[in-house]
């Protein structure tokens, strides 16, 4: 066993024991605790839990690499602005009002506000979006275990499943929330330490968010000389011109605001005011990682380009061979690594260079290799592995809770057996959660080839289905049940059809005006808004009582109508 493996085991062991201990200490016995932690989580803790829930394996492991490599710098801003900007919409337009409405799940709001049909569409969408997401998380767990501990991905995913099973099934939302607080702490420390160390050693400024400005000039220069477009320049890639940058960013923003597993977190706040402050804490905690990611991207890109193009292949730093060994660094298009021009180096060059490119680097390794790239000792490499696992597991557990509450609350309790006791509901919730973990694990071990694509597309689908009817449901008393159902179906159908038409794995069509499948959700959202508004004009208005209730949630304090609505369950 190498030093790195030993330290990884140590950190993973310590953090996993901590999660299990927390779960045991906060085990629950009521449905309110199970679904929303009894609404009794203080704002800073809730903020940290939201942040951990929000930041998935994609944010922690992949984002910096995607910015640096796949999107070559500036264009990667779509993810930075999209994911954090969507949070602003959530905090201002949705969170306080949904908290006031006071139900457990997103389908519950949709069902109460509109109709049973709308509830059903919402349940289905929530479950599909959550499963797509959770499969990605389990896959991330597999990557980390394979790379750092040398076990097979299957064993890795199974260990992850067992841990999640233990604390999610036992502790429900309460256990998950407190575990996520611990997971946020682990993941942010793991992310910041290598970034601070690199920034301090390269620029002398320990704040990577400011320090990386100093190397941008050098990086642009180096990229140009190697035949890449400049890192900081905008619109150099025709796929990411101004129109598409706007559309993709907007799709990510509006989609993020409509993700069911994040919205439900605001129900765990003590009051409307606590919901607002949970949002403040969460954006601060999320911002810390998102402000650091572009710095990690720039520092790593510079180091990678520099070492590959100036160092003979035999003398490359350790991270190169560790990742080449597991085929995450290969030749172009997955071919074996080969020194094509015989200059003794693996050249990493862009399309405009005279020297042919000899290297392809997987987006996911940039962050995992960041401690080694920074020349940090083995214990820190282990810490990053534990951080990546924390990011993946925290998001997975939040998603599993959405699946379980959708089935147990929205389907079983509301439709199948309205007379169910607390105990029966809890039992159904736990069984659903267990089954969901098994399905998620299966998807993590045998990922359908299209998962990666679909995760990115889930945002477009969420934007086109949920966002408009949530906003209209809150701000427009006269939005009708049929309007919302028609809007959701129109938005979803339009967006799905365009995605299937343009995605390479399906028809590979050219699309309209070069709009990529990742950006079409923005147009789908506008379609949904238009259809909901038009159909609402011609269909039966919501009941007087519902209109009055929608009015009530605009004002502070718990009023009689809201009180009654909550009692009706």
């Amino acid at each position, binding site marked *: 066993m190498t030093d790195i493996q030993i330290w990884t085991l140590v950190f993973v062991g310590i953090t996993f024991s901590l999660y299990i201990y927390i779960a045991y200490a906060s085990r629950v016995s009521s449905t309110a605790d199970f679904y929303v932690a009894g609404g009794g989580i203080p704002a800073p803790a809730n903020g940290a839990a939201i942040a951990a829930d929000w930041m998935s394996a994609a944010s922690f492991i992949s984002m910096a690499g995607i910015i640096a490599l796949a999107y070559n710098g500036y264009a990667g801003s779509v993810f930075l602005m999209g994911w954090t900007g969507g949070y602003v919409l959530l905090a201002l337009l949705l969170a306080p009002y949904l908290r006031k409405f006071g139900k457990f799940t997103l389908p519950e709001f949709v069902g109460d506000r509109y109709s049973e049909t709308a509830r059903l569409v919402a349940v289905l969408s929530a479950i599909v979006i959550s499963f797509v997401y959770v499969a990605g998380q389990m896959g991330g767990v597999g990557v980390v275990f394979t790379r750092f501990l040398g076990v097979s991905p299957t064993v890795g995913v199974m260990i992850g499943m067992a841990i999640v099973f233990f604390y999610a099934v036992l502790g429900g939302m309460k256990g998950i929330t407190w575990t996520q607080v611990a997971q946020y702490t682990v993941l942010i420390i793991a992310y910041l330490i290598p970034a601070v160390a690199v920034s301090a050693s390269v620029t002398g400024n320990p704040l990577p968010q400011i320090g990386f400005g100093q190397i941008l000039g050098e990086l642009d220069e180096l990229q140009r000389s190697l035949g890449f477009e400049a890192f*900081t320049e*905008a619109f150099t890639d025709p796929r990411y011109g*101004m129109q598409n940058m706007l559309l993709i*960013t907007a799709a990510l923003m509006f989609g993020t605001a409509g993700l069911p597993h994040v919205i439900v977190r605001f129900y765990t706040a003590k009051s409307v005011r606590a919901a*607002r402050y949970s949002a403040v804490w969460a954006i601060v905690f999320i911002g810390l990682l998102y402000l650091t990611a572009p710095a990690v991207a720039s520092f790593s890109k510079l180091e990678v380009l520099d070492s590959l193009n100036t160092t003979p292949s035999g003398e490359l730093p350790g991270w190169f061979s560790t990742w080449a060994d597991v085929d995450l660094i290969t030749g172009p298009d997955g071919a074996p690594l080969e020194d094509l021009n015989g200059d003794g180096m693996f050249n990493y060059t862009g399309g405009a260079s005279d020297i042919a490119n000899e290297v392809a680097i997987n987006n996911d390794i940039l962050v995992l290799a960041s401690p080694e790239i920074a020349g940090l000792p083995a214990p820190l490499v282990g810490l990053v592995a534990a951080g990546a696992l924390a990011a993946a597991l925290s998001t997975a557990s939040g998603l599993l809770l959405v699946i379980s509450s959708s089935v147990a609350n929205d389907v079983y309790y509301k439709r199948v057996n309205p007379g169910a006791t607390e105990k029966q509901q809890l039992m159904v919730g736990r069984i659903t959660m267990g089954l969901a973990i098994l399905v998620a694990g299966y998807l993590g071990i045998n990922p359908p080839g299209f998962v990666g694509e679909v995760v990115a597309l889930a945002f477009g689908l969420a934007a086109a289905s949920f966002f408009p009817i949530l906003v209209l449901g809150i701000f427009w008393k006269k939005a009708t049940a049929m309007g919302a159902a028609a809007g959701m179906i129109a938005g979803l159908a339009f967006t799905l059809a365009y995605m299937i038409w343009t995605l390479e794995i399906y028809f590979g069509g050219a699309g309209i005006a070069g709009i990529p499948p990742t950006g079409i959700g923005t147009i789908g959202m506008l379609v949904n808004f238009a259809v909901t508004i038009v159909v609402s004009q011609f269909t039966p208005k919501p009941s007087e009582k519902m209109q009055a209730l929608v009015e009530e949630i605009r004002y502070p304090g718990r009023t009689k109508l809201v009180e009654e609505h909550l009692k009706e369950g």
Partner: protein
Amino acid sequence: MNPDDRQAYWRANLRLMATLLAIWALVSFGAGIIFVDQLNQITILGFPLGFWFAQQGSILVFIALIVVYAVRMDALDKKFGADDYEEGGVSH
């Protein structure tokens, strides 16, 4: 709260929201994308300004927007004497 107060409260809420969302769109879609080339002519601490807005500035402004929203809404609640928040959990 009487009906007049309610209306005033809701208007103030909407005004605050509209202002904050206008800033939200200006820094991200505006400074980060539409005007990025022009802003990139200016360099501060090594950052071309448009690039900085797209990768740092917009996020910093987003954080500020949410803080301002929470603080201003608190003040609004207090002004209308509606700051006795229910601490009860979600009933079922």
